[in-house]
């Protein structure tokens, strides 16, 4: 008998106002044995998180409902419909969960000690002193440095990786039999990701836990999981040993998922093309003001002395982890950061010096330099239709003589990015994430720009959708000779699109060169750690 047996699990969310109910999970069945790692893989909306939450009965009942055949057996005991008191005994004790967003999963008003000790006090009925000792043990175990000193720290005083370690400490506090990890590293940087995954593997071995890993990242699955279940649209379409599935996927969807990594390389750029954008020792410093008179005590040097060149028709990839200053660099190049930081250095666009121009004089130039943002959900104004969003730039720059011409241009651009022009009157929320990103690209493209800053345009999208967007961007570059500044932390995507790469850390460039060279033979130790973490999920100490 397996430790966890899930059979015919179905979850439906009640419809409102007559709309039919949504079947989030349809008859999912899998088992988990002691000491095993099982991965639930799928794209967003496939139902994997809902499955994980069902195990601990954490869904919003009665809005969510299970069918009568749904069965989740833990060590022989049925969990679906179990008494709340019994479930409370299980949660955090026999089965523990680690969530995706460490910032919102920790109570912002409780110190670390209080949060970790809470689960000890509830389940083990320890005294405060004993709980403190055990908390310190756990924090050492998860590798939190200077645990003694940090007991009184609040979540916002820790970095993302440290918060996730605290969450893991909370989860393993009572030595559970099963640890459910719901996308535990998605919100973290690549190097930290590797460390956290290593930690989870070590803890699993040491404590003899079973690990249920929910993720959309196939490389994590390859490195961590012994068995894998592939989910799509609420159904498990394929399950089995990881090696077998990756080597010989049976189901069409699995095959598509495995093939969906951003692939290909850019065709080589023309080295004689003119330099379109040039940055000379760009500086963006944010002043830190302290004291009664708000005196400037120091600066946060978000971008410190970065020089770069982008040629027409080529892509410069800017790579770095969160906090490295890459987004700030991109926005600074477009002069979108004026109100916020102190800027220095020179920026030249097509020969014009734009670093010191007034905003009003820049307006005509804005046609030629555009931006696509990261989050497709917040980069489109929710109350305007797609046609209005795409047409706004045309209106501002008076690029069309008549309404009919504007309409035609909008529809042409929508078709070019792969959207149905008939849907132009719909609102953004009626489209999926990938489609919204296409709309954002259309918005930039309709002005026929020469330079496009792409600020992590694929980070919020699923893998297969990422590949499509990358293809689209490559195609548009080839057709229109666009220059891209592609900012990303995802090295696979950068490799597929960039001619040259800049690696940034703490506001400075640590390495620059052609994509080929930097990817295959990195020189700087930080770059090497980055490559190792991204492609092999190896945690190399820097």
């Amino acid at each position: 008998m397996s430790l966890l047996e899930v059979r015919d699990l179905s979850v439906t969310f009640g419809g409102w106002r007559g709309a039919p109910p949504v079947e989030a999970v349809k008859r999912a069945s899998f088992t988990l044995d002691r000491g095993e790692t099982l991965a639930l893989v799928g794209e967003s909306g496939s139902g994997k998180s809902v499955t994980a939450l069902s195990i601990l009965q954490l869904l919003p009942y009665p809005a969510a409902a299970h069918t009568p055949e749904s069965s989740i057996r833990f060590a022989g005991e049925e969990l679906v419909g179990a008494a709340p008191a019994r479930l409370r005994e299980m949660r955090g004790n026999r089965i523990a969960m680690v969530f995706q967003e460490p910032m919102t999963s920790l109570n912002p008003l409780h110190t670390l000690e209080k949060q970790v000790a809470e689960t000890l006090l509830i389940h083990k009925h320890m005294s405060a002193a004993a709980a403190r000792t055990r908390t310190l043990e756990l924090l050492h175990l998860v590798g939190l440095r200077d645990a003694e000193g940090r007991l009184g720290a609040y979540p916002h005083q820790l970095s993302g990786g440290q918060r996730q370690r605290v969450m893991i400490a909370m989860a393993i506090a009572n030595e559970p039999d099963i640890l459910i990890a719901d996308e535990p590293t998605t919100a973290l940087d690549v190097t930290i990701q590797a460390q956290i995954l290593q930690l989870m593997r070590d803890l699993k071995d040491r404590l003899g836990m079973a690990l249920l890993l929910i993720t959309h990242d196939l490389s994590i699955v390859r490195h961590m999981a012994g068995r894998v279940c592939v989910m799509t649209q609420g159904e498990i379409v394929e399950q089995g040993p990881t090696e077998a599935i990756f080597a010989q996927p049976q189901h069409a969807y699995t095959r598509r998922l495995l093939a969906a990594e951003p692939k290909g390389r850019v065709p080589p750029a023309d080295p004689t093309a003119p330099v379109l954008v040039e940055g000379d020792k760009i500086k963006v410093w944010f002043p830190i003001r302290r004291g009664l008179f708000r005196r400037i005590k120091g600066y946060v040097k978000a971008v410190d002395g970065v020089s770069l060149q982008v040629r027409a028709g080529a892509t410069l990839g800017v790579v770095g982890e969160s906090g490295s200053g890459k987004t700030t660099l991109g926005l600074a190049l477009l002069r979108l950061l004026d109100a916020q930081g102190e800027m220095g250095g020179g920026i030249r666009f097509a020969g014009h010096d734009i670093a010191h121009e007034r905003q009003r004089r820049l307006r005509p130039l804005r046609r030629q330099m555009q931006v696509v943002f990261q989050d497709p959900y917040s980069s489109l104004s929710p109350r305007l239709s797609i046609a209005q969003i795409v047409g706004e730039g045309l209106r501002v720059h008076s690029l069309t003589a008549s309404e009919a011409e504007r309409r035609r241009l909008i529809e042409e651009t929508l078709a070019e990015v792969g959207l149905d022009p008939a849907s132009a009157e719909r609102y953004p929320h009626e489209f999926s994430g990938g489609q919204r990103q296409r709309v954002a690209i259309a918005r930039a493209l309709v002005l026929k720009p020469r330079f496009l800053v792409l600020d992590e345009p694929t980070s919020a999208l699923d893998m297969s959708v990422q590949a499509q967007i990358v293809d689209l961007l490559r195609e548009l570059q080839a057709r229109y000779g666009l220059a891209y500044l592609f900012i990303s932390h995802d090295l696979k995507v950068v490799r597929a699109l960039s001619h040259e790469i800049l690696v940034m850390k703490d506001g400075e460039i640590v390495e620059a060169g052609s994509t080929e060279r930097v990817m295959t033979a990195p020189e700087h130790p930080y770059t090497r750690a980055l490559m190792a973490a991204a492609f092999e999920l190896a945690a190399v100490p820097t």
Partner: protein
Amino acid sequence: MNDLPPPDEAKAEAKATTAVERKDAAGIVTTARIPGQVLPPAGDTFLGRRITPLTRRRLDNFRANRRGFWSLWVFLVLFVVSLFAEFIANDRPLLVRYEGSFYIPVLHDYPETAFGGFLPSRADYRDPAITQLINEKGWIVWPLIPFSYRTITDAPGPFPAAPSGTDWLGTDDQGRDVLARLIYGFRISVLFGLALTLFSSLIGVAAGAVQGYFGGLVDLGFQRFIEIWEGLPVLYLLIILATIVEPNFWWLLGLMLLFSWTGLVAVVRAEFLRARNFDYIRAARALGVSDGVIIFRHVLPNATVATLTFLPFILNGSITTLTSLDFLGFGLPPGSASLGELLAQGKTNLQAPWLGITAFLVLAVMLSLLIFIGEAVRDAFDPRKVVR
């Protein structure tokens, strides 16, 4: 997952209608529907205008709050009826037929001589002589209540007279019919409230928008100004004004407006401070859109959500303000119909309980209706409420 703070509304809406991308033969990506999931029709309309599914959900939420929904209908009916006060309670008949032709005294003045009277002065239809002349050669259609708010009725006994067959709610201490005054008073209270709410909202939203969008010194300076401004004593200023000028509807409106616009500023400021960092604002700036256009086209529609939830309560407060002023005697000029004045009379004439009770009941019902409507509007805009 559901313990997270509610995401941005647009995000919630987008995730709720997940769609799968498919490429058709031409390589164009279309939305395929997940079987069993319903995407709302593209042509959803309300009152003739296209609305988004988000708006549809809010309207449904509002309708689901039965108390608020019916309160809105009751209030609207009462308000519309009171708009026609001249046709319901008037000392001039609606229609007079005399010697074969029709006269509409409600709308026009006719001399006595038109009905065979003696003097060429304006016909007083309350004079039994005139009515007798008319009834000899025609008929009169009176409005429901044959008194205006100024008419002194000839009720028996000392004023205030108790409710009787002619004066259904009695008369006040000057002999005027209470029911007629109620109807006119209700109308003017609500109109004042609406006007005050509208104008103070406009000013408040504009001020909040400027503060929130530009931030920095503008915000700081404005906030300090508002703090000082709110510290001014409104009532004293009104008293001073009353000694200089006889305050009428518009003067009162203007003065109250001077002090009530600050109500919405904080909320709108917060919305703008939040919204100005959104990506779509940055994208609009990157397109070269000017600040003013960004405020109007992008940020303002999103800030109206918070504003709308406050409006019924502001309306409530405005009506109460006028009533309080009238009660104290600093409001509308004497002689005008108002609920506050009726309340004041009720206070001084405790031996005539119909005055106080009527005024209290009408005020209580009216304000309660508005509160119910306000609660329903708040529920409608609550992003967490999904009606089953």
